[in-house]
């Protein structure tokens, strides 16, 4: 009895009441108390009916208990159907059903909505209508969560898109830059090789130039020597010429004096010729006078004739002298002319010798200039050789550098490729996550 419910206790008490009433009715019947017996019998009957109703109530409660037990185990399916009772018992069944329906509705809605979210669909919301109290608040919160998740995933998708555009572009640029770098390294390598070859060629050419310069140097030295020789010879020639010039001048003066003397002789001869003419005229006149004097004058005539003959001979002699003088004059004129010509020629020789001397001077200067220039060229060639060696070294270094750059750019290209792949993988993954397919696949 102590562990029994109020319902069980009531059942026991009703049963006891029925038995006691029945016993009282039987006793009253034996004592001929008919009215008492009837009253007690009716009471016993009522107690019996009450017992049946209580059993009915117990059955309903058991059903309620069973449904609740299922619900407690997480099975929201069972409901109380066809409850054979009314009033509070029916209300109890209805309330239980309503409570379960509410929980069931909430669970189904929440499950379906979150399944949609899981599958990347965001149009689904928990239908809040019909949900009350805690369930309504829970539904509202979950809906807000769905909206938030959707917004975040959309934002995430946008960020991914942005990431794709920027990083993808950067990676593309990087790839092309690496290609450019690789190309540049190759070009640099080629240039370095070419530079090496060229600098080698330059060194060789510089050596050749050096040899040529040596040749030119010795040639110019010989040239200087021969120029000096020429200068000396020219100076001698000049001296001789000047001496010849002086001599011819002296000869010219002498010839002039000689001409003057001849001229004076010619004047004397003319005077003699005039005297002989006058003598002849006198002789002629004496002859005539002699004739007049007859015989007296015959002697005198002979002398006059002799004087006339002498005058004729003198005239002949002066004529010959005049011819000779003319010849001498002609010859002395020619000599004078020759001497003048010699003087002129000698002047020309002096002029030429002077010119030669000046030219030789210039040649000497030019040769010295050549020698100096050759020295400069030698120095320059040495510098070129040095520089070419440096260039060669630098070209070697840059060749190695270009090789290193090519190696690095190759490695970089690999890295960029890997970066590309990583970015692509990341984007694929991120898009799957954003679209919700990933969680489904996982």
């Amino acid at each position, binding site marked *: 009895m102590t562990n029994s419910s109020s319902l069980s206790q009531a059942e026991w008490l009703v049963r006891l009441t029925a038995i006691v009433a029945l016993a009282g009715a039987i006793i009253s019947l034996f004592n001929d108390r008919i009215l008492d017996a009837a009253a007690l019998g009716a009471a016993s009957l009522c107690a019996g009916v009450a017992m049946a109703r209580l059993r009915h109530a117990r059955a309903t409660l058991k059903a309620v208990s069973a449904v609740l037990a299922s619900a407690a185990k997480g099975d929201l*399916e069972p*409901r109380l*159907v066809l409850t054979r009772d009314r009033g509070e018992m029916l209300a109890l069944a209805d309330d239980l059903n309503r409570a379960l329906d509410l929980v069931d509705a909430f669970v*189904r809605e929440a499950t379906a909505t979150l399944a949609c979210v899981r599958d990347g669909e965001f149009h689904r919301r928990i239908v809040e*209508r*019909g949900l009350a109290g805690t369930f309504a608040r829970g539904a509202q919160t979950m809906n807000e969560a769905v909206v938030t998740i959707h917004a975040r995933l959309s934002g995430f998708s946008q960020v991914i898109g942005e990431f794709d555009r920027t990083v993808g572009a950067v990676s593309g640029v990087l790839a092309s830059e690496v290609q450019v770098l690789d190309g540049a390294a190759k070009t640099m390598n080629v240039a370095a090789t070419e530079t090496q070859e060229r600098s080698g060629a330059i060194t060789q050419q510089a050596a050749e130039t050096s040899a040529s310069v040596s040749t030119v140097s010795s040639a110019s030295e010989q040239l200087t020597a021969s120029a000096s020789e020429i200068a000396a010879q020219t100076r001698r020639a000049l001296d001789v010429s000047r001496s010849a010039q002086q001599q011819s001048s002296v000869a010219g003066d002498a010839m002039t004096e000689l001409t003057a003397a001849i001229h004076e002789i010619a004047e004397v001869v003319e005077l003699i010729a005039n005297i002989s003419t006058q003598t002849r005229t006198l002789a002629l006149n004496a002859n005539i006078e002699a004739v007049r004097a007859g015989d007296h004058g015959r002697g005198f005539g002979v002398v006059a004739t002799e004087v006339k003959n002498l005058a004729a001979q003198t005239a002949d002699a002066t004529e010959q002298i005049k011819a000779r003088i003319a010849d001498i004059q002609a010859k002395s004129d020619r000599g004078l002319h020759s001497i003048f010509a010699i003087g002129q020629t000698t002047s020309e020789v002096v002029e030429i010798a002077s010119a030669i001397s000046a030219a030789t001077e210039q040649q000497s200067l030019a040769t010295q200039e050549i020698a100096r220039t050759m020295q400069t060229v030698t120095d320059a060639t040495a510098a070129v050789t040095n520089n070419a060696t440096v260039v060669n070294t630098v070209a070697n270094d840059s060749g190695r550098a270009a090789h290193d750059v090519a190696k690095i750019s190759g490695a970089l290209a690999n890295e960029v490729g890997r970066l590309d792949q990583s970015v692509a993988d990341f984007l694929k993954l991120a898009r799957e996550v954003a679209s919700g397919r990933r969680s489904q696949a996982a």
Partner: protein
Amino acid sequence: MLPSFRSAPLGPIKQKLLSRVAPTGVERRFPERDIIVSKTDLKGTITYANRVFLDVAGLTEREVIGAPHSFLRHPDMPRAVFALLWERLAAGKEIFAYVVNLAANGDHYWVHAHVTPTFGASGEIVGFHSNRRVPHPAAVEKIKPIYRKLREIEDNNANRANGLAQSRAHLNAILAQAGVTYDQFVFSLAS
């Protein structure tokens, strides 16, 4: 809550009578806070109906339990919607639909129905469950002309199967034109 009467065990007879009742054109409403709940077994036989259901439909539990769920069907409902509904349920998926139902006296009431399969312990479908809420009037006004068109296509076809196929094709065309899935479409009606 509307008053209800406990009836004599005359369920099957009442069900038959109900299947022939003529629509009155009178619309019934139920409180927004309430949900009409019913459950069926795999064959669509009703195994549970809550108090709201019984009150709105004007039926007793005895009349409803054991009856096929389709006996509530209003003649204005296109078959295409139910075909889609059963297709989805058979695939183990939930479905939302705006449905007009018939009350015992021929009145009708619109619901926003959410039908889901009930899964057993090992994941198999053991029955179906329907929560029906008060629909948004705007959604009902949007769906009415579509249902009318679908019903018209179904009625104008002598061959039932062809009528159903054409009706469903029309529904799909509407969805394709809007560029949405059926679920997105149904959810969009309430907003």
